[in-house]
């Protein structure tokens, strides 16, 4: 059976048939990795490896990293890397398709109705919510967003959001929740994650569910 992103997503949503479930599990826990991932031409494999590792390392329990170098742990890590790798490739393929993009741009179109995409992009950690389009221009500090995202800048930055004239200051290390509708009538909402409980409960529930925070 062909293991692809869609199948893995369905596996996590618990929507697989018994047969599909077994195939995914066999693939995840297989000792050999015959199905190597093909990266687009010009992509550096080592770079992807490091960025993927950097992204998953902080979410792993520390004691398991330091104490438990068991075989099963590495199997899990490799499986996770493959999942992230697939998502990452999806993202890169998208950006490669967009002709106007330069290294100063990052854009992501998360068409999944449930899953969140995580990126460790130039200067920001970003999680893009379901049904969300986000485009960030690093040079001008402008963001075009329709949907929801979490952003955590690696240094203090000022961003300007499309549809709003105001510059918004984001502090290093803090996570911000940004929500914007698809129409111009919707006001953009930017709040620090620590003030999540100040948002209306209807929006809070939507965010905590989407991003599992």
């Amino acid at each position: 059976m062909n293991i692809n992103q869609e199948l893995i997503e369905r596996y996590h949503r618990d929507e697989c048939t018994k047969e599909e479930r077994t195939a995914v599990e066999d693939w995840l826990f297989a000792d050999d990795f015959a199905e190597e991932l093909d990266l687009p031409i010009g992509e550096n494999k080592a770079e992807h490896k490091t960025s993927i590792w950097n992204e998953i390392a902080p979410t792993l329990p520390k004691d398991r990293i330091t104490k438990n170098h068991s075989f099963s742990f590495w199997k899990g890590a490799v499986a996770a890397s493959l999942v992230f790798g697939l998502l990452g490739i999806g993202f890169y393929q998208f950006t490669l398709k967009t002709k106007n993009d330069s290294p100063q741009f990052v854009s992501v179109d998360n068409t999944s109705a449930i899953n969140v995409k995580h990126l460790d992009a130039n200067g920001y950690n970003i999680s893009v919510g379901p049904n969300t389009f986000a485009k960030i221009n690093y040079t001008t500090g402008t963001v075009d967003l329709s949907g929801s995202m979490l952003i955590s800048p690696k240094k203090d930055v000022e961003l300007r959001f499309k549809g709003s004239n105001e510059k918004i200051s984001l502090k290093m290390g803090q996570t911000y929740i940004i929500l914007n509708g698809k129409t111009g009538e919707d006001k953009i909402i930017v709040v620090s994650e620590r003030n999540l409980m100040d948002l209306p409960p209807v929006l809070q529930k939507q965010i905590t569910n989407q991003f599992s925070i």
Partner: protein
Amino acid sequence: MQEQKIYQSAKKAILLLASLIISFCYYSCSQKPDNSNALVNKKYSMYILGKDGKEYIIETNSLESGKILPEKQGAILDAKAMDRDIIVKNGSYYHLNRKKATLSKYNLQNDSLNSTASIPLKDFSIENYFWLGADSLLLTGLDIKGFKQAKYVVIEAKKMKLISSGNLAIPRPSGKFTSMSIGFVELRKNHLFLGYTYHQQLSPSNYTTSDTTYIAELRYPQMNLLKIDKDTRSTYPGGINTVQSYSFNDEHNNYYFMSCPGIALGNRPDLPTGIFRIKAREEHLDKDYFINISSSLINNHAYGLWYLGNNKAIIRSERKDLFKGLSDHYSTAHFEFYLIDLAEAKVLKKLNLPLDKGTRRECVIVKDNVAYIAVNSSTQGNFIWIYNIQTGSLKKGLELAGNTDFIMRIDNLNP
């Protein structure tokens, strides 16, 4: 000779060490009971959000005066496990950890907040709590996947044991409505009243609420639905009462609750914020009673309602001329406190307090003839203000300084 000297000094050292150890043991043994006694007896608790994002709980015996630095006197909280949506009773804190799906009971011991017992609470988002008895806690909530199914659990709080649980026969959102909210719970003998309404998600950053306040009447403890009462004078009855209070019973068992259609809760700013009543011994809304807050001298929406006694209450209202939207609603100082006369059904006056910040906060404790009001002012600091209910005088009490950014809540530890 030399050998003997060494031997003697070693002996001395051992003796000295032994006496040190004994005195240390004695000291620590005699200290322990004192400490725990002092901790058990504290009267009030404060939940602080620091300027650097750290959160603290501080317990104290007096809110009257002095200065507290949370980074020195507070217990620092694990931000992943704790948040300010808590239930405080008999010196314990109850909090639902959404991610772990566990309801835990905490106590402050030796400067840290420790979990003493917990119970799994799967697929449950708390909307409102109600103490059925001294030790019996009713939680009403919704499923966490869609926020469509009203549910309940009853817990024996002392042992953290599940007594009963199930779904509530309240109609799920239908038609254009996508989710719902439960805003208050009140028990009268064997009749349970639940205020609720429905929401429609319009976009990732926008939603709206039905124009109707619903009140379901259920038989307790069977939990079967008896009837549903509707009212369109205002919508979004109450709110999540683990974060802020929106209802109470007066001395004669008349039940009052506030509706909150403002942008911070219902997002139906076209409808007025109002105070409703269910009279004592009655089982439906008092159709002749409604305090229209938005058309009063306040001329704004309000969130948060606290009873002072003798038909007087305090509400916390926003100032739409001072904030721009939801992004600065919590960080801008724009909240005012007003005194309400419930018998006359009118707004009496604004309390002479600095503008307060924080969208939703549990910030009033009423004790005897005094209301302690926590105010986060951008210009005058974070203080507990002391309002004398009889004379109407106001003065500054305890100051929360140092790392304090917001006093998020103040609680009576033994309500």
